């Protein structure tokens, strides 16, 4: 081991190379030996791993078709492995497991709801939004959902104007505000309007580009004193 233990920067540099799998074999071995005894480097490695995963996501071209499970499983279990049990099992077993996991989430959510005053409740607000659409003019309703699939807000677009109706969102904490974003196809997100609760102040704004050139709308939570150039804490998103 030739590294000077007093200068940890050397290890941090090696660690970044290690996280990218870019070290030469000798350095890699040195790094692995150091990692075994250095909690700081292990913690930073976890951070690097997450950052690297974002680079992976950046390269992820969804239009590039990936092999299905049936293509992959042959290499794992042998081409002759009977498939019949999977197909039969999948819906029963996996769905039941996932439902069980989802149940845990619902319970956790219910506990939170009692301490968080929801400014409006699900279906009603959405129906109001839909009703406000009217029938005379062209009108689009886009539900925005959080990552766990909960319907948080509804965006209504009429005559090129977007209006956001919170459905299940707590009031923005002090010093923060919600921002409605339009995500134009192939271009940077555009902030449309800000709002803090489901009150009459729920914002509306003309679209930055026509709906037909829009990928999605999103609501993010932002610091009230800063005008961000892209969404930071995304609360909900819905594709057009």
């Amino acid at each position, binding site marked *: 081991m030739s590294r000077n233990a007093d200068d940890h920067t050397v290890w941090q540099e090696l660690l*970044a190379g290690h996280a990218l799998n870019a070290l030469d074999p000798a350095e890699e071995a040195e790094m692995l030996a150091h990692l075994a005894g250095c909690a700081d480097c292990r913690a930073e490695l976890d951070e690097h791993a997450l950052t690297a995963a974002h680079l992976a996501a950046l390269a992820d071209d969804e239009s590039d078709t990936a092999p299905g499970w049936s293509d992959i499983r042959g*290499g794992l279990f042998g081409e002759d492995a009977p498939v019949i049990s999977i197909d039969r099992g999948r819906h029963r077993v996996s769905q039941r497991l996932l439902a069980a996991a989802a149940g845990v989430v619902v319970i956790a959510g219910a506990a939170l709801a009692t301490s968080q005053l929801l400014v409006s409740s699900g279906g009603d607000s959405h129906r109001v939004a839909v009703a406000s659409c009217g029938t005379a003019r062209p009108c689009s309703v886009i539900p925005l959902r959080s*990552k766990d699939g909960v319907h948080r807000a509804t965006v209504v677009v009429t005559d090129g104007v977007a209006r956001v109706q919170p459905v299940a969102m707590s009031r923005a904490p002090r010093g923060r505000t919600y921002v409605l974003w339009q995500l134009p196809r*192939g271009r940077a997100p555009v902030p449309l309007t800000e709002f803090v609760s489901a009150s009459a102040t729920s914002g509306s704004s003309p679209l930055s580009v026509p709906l037909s050139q829009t990928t999605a709308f999103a609501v993010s939570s932002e610091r009230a004193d800063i005008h961000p150039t892209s969404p930071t*804490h*995304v609360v909900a998103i819905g594709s057009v």
Partner: protein
Amino acid sequence: MLTLHNGDGRHVRAEAQEDAVLLREVARGSEPALEAIYNRYGPACYRLARRILADAHLAEDVTQQVFLALWKGSGYDPRRGALSTWLLGITHHKAVDMVRHEERRRAERLGPAQAEIAAAIPGPDDVAWESLRAMQARAALRELSGDHREVLLLAYYGGFTQTEIAEMTGLPLGTVKSRTLHAMRRLRETLAPSLGAEGDETR
């Protein structure tokens, strides 16, 4: 769809909980659970491998190796991060290992600049979240200076070692190393608001 978040337990979300359930079943030998995990994360792993290897067949081999590792009792530790992060990490590792044995394919691989540009705008529907995160990563990458971006992308997408990068760019090896560290840290800082924080306010 892909979820990336810190595994610190404060923002345990539905997907992480489902992953935990599925992993437990995989450990018990449930192939349907492995299939469910594959359906979630396998395509992203495959596409990362394919980006690095520029070869569909090799990318499929790598993807098989990754899920075989998971099947055989992987060493994944949920305290250290999300399953998606771990899977992409070993995918990258295996793909880079393979590309170094496939030197002749290097010329066919995408250059780093193309790799950055080629991050396509995803389609509609449930890829909307994904597209948003990709936008954030892309914006964060743009925040880096060209010098920093270059060493990062050559290493990550190119699969080149730092020694090779030094030779290619004519930079001293020490400069490549320090730039890589700075690039990773800067990228993390720029991404920080979105890492593990999505949807905080809804909980």
